């Protein structure tokens, strides 16, 4: 396939691909924002045990967690316009990015709702009672006691999701969306240097994922400063730079 390998093409492709990074990041950010919204709405009926809605959200979550993202993209891209045709709305001119973001929002909403549920349940009921007993009202107890701790618990979940989402956006090219992977296809076709585009592409994804991973790790350590082990860990590694720390400490340290 294509021409002889030439490392110079890798260097040449990186800036060209990076000029489409904003679209990739836009898809990730938008789908996380909408995903958070959806996730919160979907988690509520399950946390508060609302009879019918609880079932609906269970079905939603298990569907989007149980089917491949690629299939979900196709379903949304080809299925949603069909649904709208029934009410005589024509979506054939709608930007493909709308469908891409819709798919990823629905997809991450399912995961986020589970994350929210786990995080809120992770804060002991006893602390809420203590908050009430010192005279706080429900809102104060939620914002002052539950939320800060739930946020800290959910950071690793959210980190995984963000990185997974970043990598999943590469599938959007199958619908013809012009993000980084989509661009790499056209570069590859134009120059016949496919391997070089893939190397450039993987370098970019890898670097961004690693930066995100570090950033989340830092946030998590800040939010979990009340956990004993983490405080000690912080002391030990303070002299090393942010980049010098092992990538997989999260599991040993626990939530």
């Amino acid at each position, binding site marked *: 396939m294509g021409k002889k390998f030439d490392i110079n093409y890798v260097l040449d492709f990186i800036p060209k691909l990076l000029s489409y990074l904003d679209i990739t990041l836009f898809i990730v950010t938008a789908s996380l924002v909408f995903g958070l919204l959806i996730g919160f709405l979907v988690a509520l009926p399950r946390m508060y045990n609302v009879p019918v809605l609880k079932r609906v959200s269970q079905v939603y979550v298990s569907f989007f967690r149980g089917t491949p993202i690629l299939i979900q993209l196709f379903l949304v891209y080809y299925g949603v316009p069909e649904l709208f045709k029934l009410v005589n709305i024509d979506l054939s001119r709608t930007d493909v990015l709308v469908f891409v973001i819709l798919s990823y929002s629905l997809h991450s909403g399912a995961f986020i709702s589970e994350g929210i549920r786990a995080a809120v349940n992770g804060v002991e009921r006893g602390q809420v009672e203590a908050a009430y*007993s010192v*005279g*706080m009202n429900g809102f104060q107890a939620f914002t002052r006691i539950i939320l800060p701790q739930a946020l*800290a618990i959910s950071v690793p979940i959210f980190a995984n999701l963000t990185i997974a989402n970043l990598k999943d956006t590469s599938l959007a090219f199958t619908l013809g969306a012009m993000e980084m992977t989509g661009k790499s296809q056209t570069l590859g076709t134009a120059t016949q240097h496919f391997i070089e585009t893939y190397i450039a592409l993987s370098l970019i994804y890898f670097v961004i994922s690693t930066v995100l991973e570090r950033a989340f790790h830092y946030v998590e350590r800040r939010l979990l400063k009340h956990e004993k082990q983490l*405080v000690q860990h912080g002391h030990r590694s303070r002299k090393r730079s942010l980049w010098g720390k092992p990538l997989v400490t999260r599991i040993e340290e626990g939530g």
Partner: protein
Amino acid sequence: MIKLSRISKSFGKNQVLKDITLSVEKGEVVVILGPSGSGKTTLLRCLNYLERPNDGTIAIGDYTVDCKHAGKKDIHQLRQKSAMVFQHYNLFKHKTALENVMEGLVIVQKLPKEEARKRSVEVLEKVGLGAKLDAYPSQLSGGQQQRVGIARALALNPEVILFDEPTSALDPELVGEVLDVIRKIANEGITMIVVTHEMSFAREVSNHVVFMDGGVIVEEGKPNELFGAPKEERTKQFLKRITSDWVYNI
């Protein structure tokens, strides 16, 4: 000072409290005894409205609440008059010892931060934790955590402090330090209601003992009367099983 009358509470079909009537004088240290499932913890939690009684009235100081028609404001008022010390401490894990104590003062009582801080430090020194102000709960032993819990309740300056089995989650060797602190507070004349299984402590500290079983108050009286010469058969049985001095008379 505190008057409970005809308090009832059911969980589903299971009636846990049946028509409880109890009055507590200012400065009294009341100990509630009874086998597990007798409703003593539920009674304490009703006082703080962590459980909602189905019926009856609760009066603390000059504030009376009719439990059947209690609104948000009533509950809020009642909670401000009492403070609770929990079996499992229930400290705010993301806050330091000092912040745990300050939280209620700043957020609920709206004290200026400096004043809240000053008062919190004072109280923490009183429970012997002056050196642990900036420690998080995870860095403290069980006994120290429970003393923070006591400081948190004490700082609010409530009319009554409710202790829900404050030592039963502790290692045996840490029980003493917590009981010492409770004893110290009792001697200051603060009204307290204590649910406990520490019989000798109950006998020494209290001046009013209540024995509950099956959701009713079986017997109440001065510690000497109740421990020395219980009138009811059920009380005798319970005390016999719990106070173990006869075991050694082989």
